């Protein structure tokens, strides 16, 4: 099948999934017990006020109407207004997202590079000590609660050795990076590392990295196990394939054989796994953000749960869902592009 048809079908597949997801979240939030409006008020002595709010949030309408409003709103990119301070949930989420994105990207980079490196190392000898050690390492990292690892890092590298900061995204005294400013036009990504560079301020960039180090290392390490395992097994499979032996028989160097032949083919499954693991990663991000007081979406959800801010929780969860689906879509398309057998 051609790339075009593949892309189209893949996108078509994504749409119903997102819809199911939306519906699921809606049901979870609306159908499960608890009256959001009641929960909002300190004193519930003024039924008029509660009615007014119920109306304002459209909760006085029948469920199916609410559902359609909600879906329609989503298409307008409107996730409703926070029940705690009536401000736009969309705006709140977008303001929190860059922090999460930055954390996610760096964690993923760390996880994948650790995973691939160790996976390849392990694959250099099945059942040898090195292999087993790496394997066990992978299994152990998988079994560590991410927030526990985070706290340990905070204690060791933050409190103990004073190497790295353990909270926030930049030193308190430092102004937030402004991003790119050319004359009147202003462009910033909200990713402090990138904005720092755009601003041409290397110091900020470095600081941003320092503050990013522990959180992303924590999350990346916990996630690396999956990639180690996957790379390892794929490497073993590809390393036994004829074309690898053939390459050796042509006298190509081990590096070329391992990376150019074995890994290049073992990498595609790893790529798909990246797509899948992104979901896990965002889950872990919630806990990591809470541990490192990282001002991202994860902490947003946790805060809102404490406020019982239904619209916000719903919005954030949906946003996560859509984001993940989009990422996995992109990854799959990338896969299709990278794998010549699908491309064409």
């Amino acid at each position: 099948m051609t790339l075009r048809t593949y892309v189209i079908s893949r996108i078509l597949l994504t749409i119903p999934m997102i819809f199911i997801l939306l519906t699921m979240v809606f049901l979870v939030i609306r159908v499960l017990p608890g009256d959001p409006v009641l929960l909002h008020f300190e004193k519930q002595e003024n039924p008029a006020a509660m009615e007014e709010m119920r109306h304002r949030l459209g909760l006085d309408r029948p469920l199916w109407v609410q559902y359609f409003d909600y879906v329609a709103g989503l298409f307008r990119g409107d996730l409703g207004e926070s029940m705690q301070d009536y401000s736009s949930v969309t705006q709140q989420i977008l303001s929190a997202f860059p922090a999460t994105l930055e954390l996610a990207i760096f964690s993923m980079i760390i996880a994948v590079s650790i995973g691939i490196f160790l996976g390849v190392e392990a694959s250099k000898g099945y059942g040898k000590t090195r292999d087993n050690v790496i394997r066990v390492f992978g299994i152990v990292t998988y079994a560590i609660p991410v927030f526990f690892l985070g706290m340990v890092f905070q204690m060791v590298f933050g409190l103990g050795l004073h190497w790295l900061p353990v909270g926030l995204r930049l030193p308190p005294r430092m102004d937030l990076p402004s991003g790119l400013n050319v004359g009147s036009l202003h462009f910033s990504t909200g990713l402090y590392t990138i904005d720092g560079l755009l601003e041409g301020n290397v110091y900020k960039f470095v600081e941003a990295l320092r503050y990013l180090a522990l959180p992303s290392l924590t999350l990346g390490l916990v996630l690396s196990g999956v990639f180690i395992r996957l790379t390892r097994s794929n490497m073993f499979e590809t390393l036994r394939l004829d074309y690898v032996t053939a390459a050796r028989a042509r006298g190509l160097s081990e590096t070329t054989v391992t990376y150019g032949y074995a890994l290049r083919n073992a990498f595609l499954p790893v790529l798909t796994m990246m797509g899948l693991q992104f979901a896990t990663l965002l889950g872990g991000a919630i806990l990591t953000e809470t541990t490192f007081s990282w001002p991202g979406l994860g902490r947003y959800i946790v805060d809102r749960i404490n406020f019982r801010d239904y619209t916000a929780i719903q919005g954030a969860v949906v946003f996560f869902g859509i984001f993940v689906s989009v990422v996995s879509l992109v990854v799959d398309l990338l896969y299709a592009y990278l794998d010549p057998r699908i491309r064409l």
Partner: protein
Amino acid sequence: MVSQPLLSVNGLTVEYWARRGKVRAVEDVSFSIDKSETLGVVGESGCGKSTLGLSLMRLVPYPGRIVKGKILLKGRDVLGFSASEMRNLRGKDISYVFQDPMTSLNPVKKIGAHFVELIRAHEPRVSEKDAVVRTRKLLRDVGIQSERIGDYPHQLSGGMRQRVMIALAIALNPSLVIADEPTTALDVIVQAKILDLLNALRDTYGMALVLITHDLSIVLERSDRIIVMYAGHMVEYARSEDIYRNPQHPYTQGLLKAIPNVELDEQTLNAIAGSPPDLLNLPKGCRFWPRCYCAKEKCREEEPRLTCTGPDHYVRCGKYEEGE
């Protein structure tokens, strides 16, 4: 007269160390090849002929290893080579054509890339451009339009891929090419073509050829000498016409009988009864006796030695041991 052979193998023994014990896939094999001559290696699957082929390039897959023997290429002991020396040797002095062309090319690399990579790995000073030029010529030599240089393996037919493999094998015109069942994965018409191509190239490039196959008929007319292997042993080693006219080992005779003979209108095709032994628990004595029509008490007791029964004719069978 003592002219040094291109490759001479002496008492080569290869073992696989599986969890359940050691397996001798190749045991005490000795032979030699001269420049631009063809050696056929024949035997049922699992007789160790592929292992033999690979071991010549020290590519025996884990957990196998060469435990005994000597491999002399132009007088230099290959087993003594360092890793880098081996790399230089592989593909440049000896090259290998694998059984299944479908899986022998890197699916994510273009055809051309394979060549360029190979050439520049061995001749780093060659520029990309020149490498490409050479590649086009090589492809033409093996009968593929050079436009295919930009294709991916999966875009080529099996036969074409095998041609590519061959082209790769001869790219640095090595003195020896080992072809391991180069045609079994292909359909009959293509088979002949590929084999002829190999022969043609052998003549033009003047290289020696080791042709490994399970099909005696293929090697009979195409090779100068033939090794017949059974259960890791070299049971007979002789010039092909000797093998054809006077096969001495019962197994060889069996193989010959199994070839459909066109001249005879009266067909008596009788395959050898039974199946090769499990290398993990070999029968005591001669490894072939359970299937041998003329097995004697002695065969069950002691393992026969390789005996010379004529000019360049060696057999491993009790019948021909002196004292008979």
